[in-house]
């Protein structure tokens, strides 16, 4: 893992209920750095998350809402969160028991360190 991304990833993945955190190239959907629990397919998660974030960012721009800072998707078995910065997307996967307020705060702080 790149040392430059170690601190941002660690700040998120150490939170209770967070299963994975990764830095993804928004344009390519490729993993740049990651901290994952066993059993998570990083490539698939990165590709789909980046596509989702990119699509929503474009939608927001088309609707004159300016840039998307944070995205949270709630599903039956957990949460997918993403925060973008300078062409990179910080993606986290969390269980339903995770405290999403803390996760959001950690993600926003970590995303600012990505540049």
């Amino acid at each position, binding site marked *: 893992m790149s040392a430059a991304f170690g601190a941002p990833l660690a700040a998120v993945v150490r939170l209770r209920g967070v299963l994975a955190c990764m830095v993804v190239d928004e344009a390519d959907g490729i993993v740049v750095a990651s901290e994952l629990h066993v059993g998570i397919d990083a490539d698939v998660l990165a590709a789909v998350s980046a*596509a989702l974030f990119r699509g929503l960012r474009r939608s927001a721009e088309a609707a004159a809402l300016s840039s998307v800072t944070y995205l949270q998707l709630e599903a039956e078995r957990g949460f997918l969160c993403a925060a973008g910065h300078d062409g990179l997307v910080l993606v986290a996967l969390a269980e339903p028991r995770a405290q999403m307020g803390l996760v959001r705060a950690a993600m926003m702080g970590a995303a600012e360190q990505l540049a």
Partner: protein
Amino acid sequence: MKPLVAEAWVEQPLERFVRDTRARFAIVLRTNGQVLGQYGFTRAVDVMSACALAAAIHGSAEALGRELEGAPFRELYHAGAQRQVFLAATAAVRGPVLLFCAFDAESSLGLVRMYFQEFRRAVLESVPEAPPPATSFGPDLERALHHNLAVLFGRGRQTPTA
């Protein structure tokens, strides 16, 4: 737009791949350059050129991979200013096939790689058992190349199965 195919088993995997990835162009071909299906092209000559180039690039990359790592390189990717291309081989019952696709900012390398894995599985499932083709690089190669191009662009008859 639906893919045009020379062999029926290619249609479903190719159609799904281009739909999921939003690729602009895609070709499924044999490693000798014989086209099996295509999406996005309107002229036979473009398909012929793309197949020849893709087969040559794959052959070179395969040889280079063997030299460097003792095994062929699995996937090849080139990024342009607006468009990017992806080329990869996958096993099929009647011998390996190549998938060559071009995509732009509507898709991404990550998505293309992800859906290529689905394409790979679909190809293996959709090809019925059959003996390998007898004319891979034989004297009938040119005729075989032109036959499939003719089928794709409406000047020949589609082979109903593999």
